[in-house]
């Protein structure tokens, strides 16, 4: 079926703001009440740059990426706020319109390549599908292009692989295939939703490097969603830390690590195990459990688990405010390094104390 790629977006300037998200909210209507998975997130991304979104499981980051892309079903889902992509407001567009953007301008790489690839379709078919559907490529061209794509993502013997099924490949290779599929039509923005979580550690670095290479070659913007700060440390231009459906800190990468303000960010950084630690060093943990998204805690949502929480934290929700360094936003009443910060709950910081107490 021949389809012309519709020029919804217009010609691409080489840089400038590609994506702007303003106060995006995504709520799910469920039996337990309204789940506020994404509760007022704003961010922006320039062409060719990488944004990392970091947070625990259940903080809403995966919902965020899907919501920005517009992939969520509409039944029982409330979506508010604005998403502007390449100058065009795509917030309210119906799926029939978005379909022309998906795959061509925006693409997503999913977490688990075993489940994100169709097990009963050949690899080649899954790649060629986008090419033929969106770009109207004839069959032979599509096969050629697919082969080139597979080679470019580092898969040996690409011709043979085209005829194989997903289960015949290893995990790392499968993820390369999903990347190839996502990149097939040359999107301007790539969402990588926990792309390495389901993979072996040894393969993780390769995949991340691959993504970085592709990004550079194509001047493609990327949103890297992960729970692992270590993944985004060296590979992003900007990081946004998410908690309970909100962004709690956001800064250019180096600034975030050197001048972090929010205690949650501090806890995340501290929890990264380091090779240089002595063996048997206790792992740092963040005590407590992720908050209930139906009825989140009053005040600052991290307050129940924050070792520095004071009374104001529990009653008033801190707004995102600008730090001295430009581009750095944080939401905390008593940020790290401020004179008012007090360690009110030491047991949450030192696991030894916590263990000793129980």
């Amino acid at each position, binding site marked *: 079926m021949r389809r012309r790629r519709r020029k919804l977006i217009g010609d691409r300037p080489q840089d400038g703001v590609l994506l702007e998200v303003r106060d995006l909210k995504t709520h799910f209507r469920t039996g337990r009440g309204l789940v506020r998975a994404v509760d007022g997130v704003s961010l922006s991304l320039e062409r060719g740059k990488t944004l990392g979104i970091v947070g625990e499981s259940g903080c809403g980051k995966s919902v965020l990426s899907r919501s920005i892309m517009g*992939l969520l079903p509409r*039944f029982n889902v409330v979506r508010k706020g604005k998403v502007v992509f390449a100058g065009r407001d795509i917030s309210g567009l119906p799926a029939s319109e978005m379909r022309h953007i*998906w*795959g061509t301008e925006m693409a997503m790489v*999913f977490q688990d390549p075993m489940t994100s690839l169709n097990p*009963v379709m050949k690899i080649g078919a899954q790649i060629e599908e986008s090419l033929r*559907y*969106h770009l109207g490529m004839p069959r032979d061209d599509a096969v050629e292009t697919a082969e080139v794509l597979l080679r470019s993502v580092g898969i040996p013997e690409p011709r043979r692989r085209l005829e194989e099924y997903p289960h015949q490949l290893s995990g790392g290779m499968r993820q390369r295939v*999903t990347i190839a599929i996502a990149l097939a039509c040359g999107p301007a923005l790539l969402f990588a939703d926990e792309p390495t979580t389901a993979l072996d550690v040894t393969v993780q670095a390769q995949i991340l490097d691959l993504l970085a290479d592709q990004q550079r070659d194509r001047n493609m913007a990327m949103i890297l969603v992960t729970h692992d700060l270590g993944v985004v440390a060296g590979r992003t231009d900007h990081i946004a830390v998410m908690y309970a459906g909100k962004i709690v800190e956001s800064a250019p990468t180096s600034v975030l690590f050197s001048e972090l303000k929010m205690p949650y960010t501090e806890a995340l950084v501290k929890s990264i195990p380091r090779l240089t630690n002595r063996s048997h060093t206790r792992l740092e943990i963040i005590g407590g459990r992720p908050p209930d998204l139906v009825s989140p805690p009053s005040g600052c949502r991290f307050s129940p688990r924050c070792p520095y929480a004071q009374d104001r934290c529990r009653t008033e929700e801190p707004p995102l405010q600008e730090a001295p360094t430009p581009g750095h936003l944080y939401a905390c009443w008593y940020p790290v390094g401020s004179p008012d910060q007090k360690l009110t709950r030491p047991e949450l910081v030192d696991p030894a104390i916590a263990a000793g107490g129980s």
Partner: protein
Amino acid sequence: MRYFRQKLVQVVIVLMATTFLSIFLMRQLKGDPAIAITGGLVNDPVALEHVRHEWSLDRPVPIQWLRWLENTAKGNLGQSSAFNVPVSTLIKERLPVTLYLMVYAQILSLLIAIPMGVYAAYRSNRTFDRVSNTVAFGLLSLPSFVVAIFLVLVFSLHYHLFPAAPKYVSPFDNPVLHFKNLFLPVVSIALAQVAVYMRLLRADMVATLQNDFVTMARAKGMSTARILFRHAFRPSTFSLITAAAVNVGALIGGAVIIEQLFGLPGMGNLTVEAIARRDFLVVQACVALFAVGFVLVNFLVDIAYAFIDPRIRHARALA
């Protein structure tokens, strides 16, 4: 390959056991089997002795069974005592009727159930899904003969659209009449099937649609129709195929009632009469035929599984 060899062995065992069982059961009945086979019409002891020899009736049951196998292999299924024609002739006459009935019913029910099931899964929990589910549930609680009676009441007796006691007409003689006469019987069978198939497909599809690869296909910008039919449908058909296979087996029994009700001269009808009239050889042949059919269908289903899901294909090839 080993898998197929195993399956083949099982098939053979099942067939042998079934045919043996039927001979065994019938020999339990009182009375001289030779007389039963000849329908009590033959009194000449020489002729009776001939029959005994032909079917090894004076030997133990296993020998009788082997004898039957041997005769069948030679194409000799015997003479029907009730109808006084060779059994093979009877089967040649009656088998097509039942086959048409079954095949048409399956095709009809699948043609209706598949689109409905897919749509219900696509718009799950909305109005269409709920309504169709309720209706389906009602339908599958309706025994086929109840459906048949209602259909006859409305379309035959009230509106005179279709005959209530249709004569079987071969499609080669008069295609229009062929279909017209078979319409009510086929619908009676198909209606309950539609319900079962639709619900099964819907359930499987809803589960499949939760999979990441469906979201991925959407993220690729594929159209809804393409996602539904090209991506989601194939992996969702397992339950459907299994059920269709089981139904074919059940139909062989269920078609009996419909055939009886509408007076269609099919295999089911034949078997009922043969049992009632102690026509051993006919019953024997019918049982064997049904068993073969059942086993064949199951075999085909296994092949279908391998065809649909390449993972199974490869696992089996390696085994």
